[in-house]
């Protein structure tokens, strides 16, 4: 077995890369949510002064990247970044590639649906620990109106949403990983397997993703020999209320008790009492802004010392859904220590 590997799916980073800067840019509804004050930049409307929602998403990703670079003191143009790893939900990951065009640094595009942020952190950390890069910029984004139009129905169609449906987050998160510096460190990476539990409803993503999240969490604990209580916080990406409940139940069946230290970004980002989001938030931007805006700040303040971040992605496309395929899902975990 390769010397940095632990168990089936985990990598232990020998010299854990450091998160030296993070930036979050969030839409109007996210700004009004419980974490509104944590986000570095918010916008009063969904168009962000652009002509289309797709262009608005692009602007958000660039803003988030610039904020992260600024906090990492990398203000030169083009920035001193060895790789830009980014992904989003739009076809051909256009948000990421057009942001890559503006940043003018080596770019690798990623697609892991809503698990993309952790996928970026995973690959970036391994690039750095492998000695292939000194600084890596990771980003992920989603835009409610752009994503809903592509995956489900455009807003104008006025389609009713089901009670278990989730609300795609409008937001972008970015962070800079470096081989040295001050900040939380990425100690372990657990890469998920694609899991299919036979879910077919494109609105029921929490149910599709919960098994993938549990699979990755259980595997991570087994590979590292850790228990749930090793972490101060275990956070999944966007299972939302129903998926969160399901994950607790499914983990329990495998004798892993997810207690109150288990949270979900999709539940943290919106207030279900005040905001009409049904089950909660979803989208690449969900785990990205909650991590970059909220969780990393909690770590900087010393409130959270050990964090297991598990971003979850529903790997559907309108084509596979229309052809009657199930919705497979994936979850990637990264362990962060202050």
């Amino acid at each position, binding site marked *: 077995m390769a010397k940095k590997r632990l168990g089936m799916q985990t990598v232990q980073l020998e010299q854990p890369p450091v998160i030296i800067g993070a930036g979050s840019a969030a839409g109007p*509804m996210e700004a009004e949510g419980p974490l509104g004050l944590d986000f570095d930049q918010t916008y009063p409307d*969904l168009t962000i002064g652009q002509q289309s929602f797709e262009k608005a998403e692009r602007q958000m990703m660039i803003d988030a990247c610039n904020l992260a670079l600024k906090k990492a003191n990398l203000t030169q143009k083009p920035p001193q970044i060895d790789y830009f790893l980014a992904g989003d939900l739009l076809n051909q990951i256009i948000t990421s590639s057009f942001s890559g065009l503006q940043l003018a640094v080596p770019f690798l595009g990623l697609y892991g649906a809503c698990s993309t942020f952790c996928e970026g952190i995973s690959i970036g950390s391994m690039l750095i620990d492998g000695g292939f890069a000194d600084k890596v910029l990771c980003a992920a984004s989603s835009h409610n109106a752009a994503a809903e139009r592509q995956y489900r129905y455009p*807003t104008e169609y006025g389609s009713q949403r089901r009670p278990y449906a989730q609300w795609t987050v409008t937001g972008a998160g970015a962070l800079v990983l470096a081989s040295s510096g001050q900040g939380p460190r990425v100690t372990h990476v657990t890469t998920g397997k694609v899991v299919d539990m036979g879910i077919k409803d494109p609105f029921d993503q929490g149910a599709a993703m919960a098994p993938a999240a549990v699979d990755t969490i259980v595997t991570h604990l087994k590979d590292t020999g850790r228990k749930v209580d090793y972490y101060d916080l275990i956070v999944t990406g966007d299972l939302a209320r129903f998926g969160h409940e399901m994950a607790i139940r499914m983990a329990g069946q495998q004798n892993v008790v997810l207690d109150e230290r288990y949270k979900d970004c999709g539940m943290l980002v919106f207030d279900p009492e005040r905001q009409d989001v049904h089950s909660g938030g979803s989208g690449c931007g969900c785990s990205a802004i909650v991590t970059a805006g909220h969780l990393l700040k909690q770590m900087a303040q010393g409130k959270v010392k050990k964090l297991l971040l598990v971003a979850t992605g529903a790997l559907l496309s309108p084509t596979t859904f229309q052809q009657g395929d199930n919705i497979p899902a994936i979850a990637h975990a990264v362990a962060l220590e202050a």
Partner: protein
Amino acid sequence: MMYLKAFIVGGLICLLAQMILDNTKLSPGHVLSGFTVAGGLLGGLGLYDRLISFAGAGATVPISSFGNALVKGALQEVNQHGMLGILTGMFQMTSAGITAAIVFAFLTAVTFNPKS
């Protein structure tokens, strides 16, 4: 009295659609095309016109009325011009509705910006 009948029949058609949406995995697209086909079938059997004369707009406003109009237009043309009428008649009675949908959609798209 007609208002009441229109209110109740139209409401019942929508209730049926809502119950299908809430209790099955069918999408709004399925319900839309299902109701159009159902209206067409009822129209072909001559039942939908009886519903219209009973409930007025309660039966003409839902999408099922569109299915009825497709079939009725085709049948009328078939009576006058033979089997080719199936092709030419389908959109004859519905042309006003289709054109209005296209024109108003165009005007709306030109005038307004999308929001969430």
